[in-house]
């Protein structure tokens, strides 16, 4: 079998841009975490999704030396949460969320989820096309902005708080709204990877490659593989 090589220059420019922007943001100060903390947590997420035989979900990843986690800037609890979300997301429960958010502020938890989502999506894309794992940039100095939207409220359709009014949009759409920069980065990638938000209601929309039904077939298979509750 002759292997067909894919190059990053084959990839759409808007998709490359979205990934570069989100990947570089992993090493920059965020809303609730510093650049050093975000970079360190991103590294843990990289290790979690890359290992063929990860530590099991019921074991705190930070206690397993073979996981090779570097824990210098963020707490062990944050690293454990990152590892669990990155590798065992389908095992998460509301009890787990309640325990984690006794140690991590809920909005900091939302940003942490965004870090994991960024790592998971960029690495998945590059692995699927054998493009290699990009290096994390050196951490940028500076403090997190700690900017909290004025109207953060509890939601019925999510564990995490959201920008009100809650539950008017789908749960996945409102999930990250309480940390606007995380929300922006994630949905910029979704626009480039899947379907631009404004085209979502059009069942015939296509980039000229995959039809909508082909996209949904792939999406369904991945969601099924991950046993996604949603």
């Amino acid at each position: 079998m002759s292997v067909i090589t894919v190059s990053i220059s084959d990839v759409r420019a808007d998709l490359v841009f979205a990934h570069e922007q989100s990947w570089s943001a992993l090493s920059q100060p965020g809303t609730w975490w510093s650049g050093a903390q975000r970079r360190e947590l991103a590294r843990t997420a990289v290790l979690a999704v890359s290992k063929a035989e990860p530590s099991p979900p019921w074991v705190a990843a930070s206690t397993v030396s073979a996981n090779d986690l570097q824990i210098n800037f963020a707490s062990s609890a944050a690293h454990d949460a990152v590892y669990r979300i990155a590798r065992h997301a389908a095992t998460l429960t509301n009890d787990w969320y309640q325990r984690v958010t006794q140690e991590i502020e809920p909005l900091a938890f939302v940003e942490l989820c965004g870090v994991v989502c960024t790592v998971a999506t960029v690495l998945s894309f590059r692995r699927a096309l054998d493009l290699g794992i990009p290096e994390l940039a050196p951490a940028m100095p500076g403090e997190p902005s700690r900017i909290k939207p004025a109207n953060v409220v509890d939601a019925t359709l999510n564990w995490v708080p959201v920008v009100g009014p809650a539950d008017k949009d789908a749960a996945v759409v409102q999930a990250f709204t309480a940390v606007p920069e995380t929300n922006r980065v994630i949905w910029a990638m979704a626009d480039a990877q899947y379907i631009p938000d404004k085209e979502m209601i059009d069942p015939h929309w296509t980039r000229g490659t995959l039809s909508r039904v082909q996209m949904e077939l792939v999406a369904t298979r991945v969601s099924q593989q991950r046993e996604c509750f949603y």
Partner: protein
Amino acid sequence: MLSWSGTEQGLEVNLENVQNASGGVEVSFARELVDFATAATEFDLSELTKTRNDLINVAGLAVAIDAAAVIANFEMMTRLADSTGARMQTEVVANRLAVATAMGVDKVVSRR
């Protein structure tokens, strides 16, 4: 979304075939797309290389790249949903019960 987009395009999509990883009928390159998505979410690199090659050979490089992008998107969205406790309104869940049953999702033990 799969059922809806297929129906809107006059295509028959057999959700049981997604469960069996054999692809939905009457969707072009369904077999290759499902095999690529399956391999991309597992750890057999030779299978991933094979399925990627197969998809490129039948559908072209641009299709394979966009399929990888959709795979990546749902590696993101599944974690977003699971980590934030996202769930659907009760009435939406009721409407989708038949779809869940066809795909075998009703056999997955809920962690929540």
